[in-house]
């Protein structure tokens, strides 16, 4: 559905994205993850026909974004980061205008459908200027869905919403993902983890990783973190455990709870368990915790040389371009 090859965009001398290549299949929810200024919005704008790329190719719903821009725009629903609403129109008039602009047949009925889908039925005659942020976001989504597009591009769809609204919008996106191909950008990692089938991590205009959220975790987790908990007196456990080969970075937490990282490629858990039991302690818990997507994200986007097992070529390339203001952007 979305097919991108070598996409590059320059704003004057500044290169916003460079050589992006990725695909999204029909029915997929693709998460586009990256710090602010990474090039997410630029990429999305290119894909929905707002601006042409400097070089590279992109096809959306089977049409080229440069040569067949109008065809692409017919098939894409787009919600920009700042939801573009006319404050002096009512919700109904706004959606009707968008429906007309997109030549939706039986526009009135379609508008009513969407008002219902997004729980806006009772606000149809409110002026947009009087709506709360959450409601505006929903109107923006309604606008993107008005022509039942094959591809839905959502730029930070949950930004500025309260937790209840966030959950609501995420559920809605998951629901929509059954019929539409969705690409959404976010810098909230748990969101990508919850909603997306596949995640693309972008930093400084480069793709640094691409996989399902689960595989991304396991692939990049060369080292695993393990939690150990013993009952009763826990004096000396830390020394004991840290002597087991394959254990590193042991840290003590509350009440006899310890956390350590495994040396990549080794699983010292059986030895740790044996050592603790042989020494007479009560082993209550021993379980691995994967690196969270947050950790992976920071690993991939920070400007430090070689995180554990950097098997991404882009990554090493990226690490060479240390740039002060971009470091501060990540903070």
């Amino acid at each position, binding site marked *: 559905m979305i097919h991108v090859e070598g996409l590059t965009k320059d704003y004057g001398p500044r290169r916003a994205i460079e050589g992006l290549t990725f695909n999204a299949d029909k029915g997929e929810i693709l998460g586009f993850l990256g710090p602010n200024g990474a090039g997410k919005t630029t990429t999305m704008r290119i894909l929905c026909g707002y601006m*042409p790329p400097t070089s590279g190719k992109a096809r959306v719903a089977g049409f080229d974004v440069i040569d067949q821009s*109008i065809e692409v725009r017919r098939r894409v629903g787009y919600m920009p980061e700042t939801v*573009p609403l*006319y404050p*002096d129109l009512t919700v109904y008039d706004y959606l009707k205008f*968008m429906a007309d*602009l*997109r030549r939706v047949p039986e526009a009135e009925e379609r508008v009513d459908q969407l008002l219902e889908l997004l729980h806006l039925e009772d606000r149809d005659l409110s002026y947009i200027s009087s709506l709360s942020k959450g409601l505006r976001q929903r109107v923006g989504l309604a606008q993107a869905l008005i022509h039942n597009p094959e591809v839905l591009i959502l730029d930070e769809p949950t930004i500025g919403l309260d937790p209840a609204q966030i959950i609501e919008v995420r559920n809605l996106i998951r629901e929509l993902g059954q019929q539409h191909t969705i690409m959404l950008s976010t810098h909230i990692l748990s969101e990508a983890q919850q909603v997306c089938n596949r995640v693309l991590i972008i930093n400084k205009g480069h793709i640094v990783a691409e996989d399902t959220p689960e595989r991304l975790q396991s692939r990049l987790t060369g080292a695993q973190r393990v939690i150990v908990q013993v009952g009763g007196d826990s004096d000396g456990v830390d020394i004991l455990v840290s002597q087991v080969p394959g254990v590193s970075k042991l840290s003590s937490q509350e009440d006899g709870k310890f956390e350590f990282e495994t040396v990549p490629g080794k699983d010292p858990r059986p030895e740790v368990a044996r050592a603790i039991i042989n020494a007479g302690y009560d082993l209550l818990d021993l379980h691995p915790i994967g690196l969270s997507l947050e950790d992976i994200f920071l690993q991939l986007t920070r400007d430090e040389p070689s995180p554990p097992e950097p098997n991404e070529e882009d990554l090493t390339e990226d690490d060479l371009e240390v740039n002060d203001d971009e470091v501060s952007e990540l903070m």
Partner: protein
Amino acid sequence: MHNIWTIARREYNLYFSSPVAYVIAFVILLVLGIFFYLNLQVASAQPGYTPGAEITMVPLGTMLVLIVPAITTRLLAEERRMGTIELLLTAPVKDWELVVGKWLGGFLFLLTIIAITLIYPLILNQFVKPGIDQGPLLSGYLGLVLLSASLIAVGVFISSLFSNQIAAFVFTSGMLIFLWWILSPIVQVTGPLGGNSELLTYLDFSGHFFDNLTRGIIDLKDVVFYLSITVLALFFGSVSVEIRRWG
């Protein structure tokens, strides 16, 4: 045509859902009403003077120059500032359709206001025996329509260049004042030896209006002038929207 009409209709309606339409209509009708009253006073004091439609058309032409920036600056500059331009530029609408739609919305709005001012000549027609001269009335109002089309087009073009409305407003005002008032004094000062005096005379917006159209003369040259300015400005506006897509 469908796209143009959709955009134009929204713009047209928007003028009436804000105070803009009413303020503009009020000011124009008030000023014209004062002129109208004064002319009637003069006419009743001086038996030789018979007022015609020009007592409305002449001040109206000048007022259009002052009013048009207020109508046009919003059209594209505001979309850009609010980000709603993203909506229009990602809709299946061609750039020129967007620009022409915006122009048409503003143009139809101005036509509505101009149509209301027809009440003054119509009232005058009742007072003057044997009625006012119909020729200048028709050609003059044709002139107002043509003038509006070209002024709005220039305004839309300038609006497409800015995302700051105040900058767009001031620039549009300056440009229209230049085209309306400044060109002919320049020609008078520099004289025919100025080199470009013919071109400058041709570009003088007020000359085409006052010299012929308000006097009952419909010269194809004047019609072509206003129409070509309109087309040219809309063309530049479309190019400007297209160019701004790139960065």
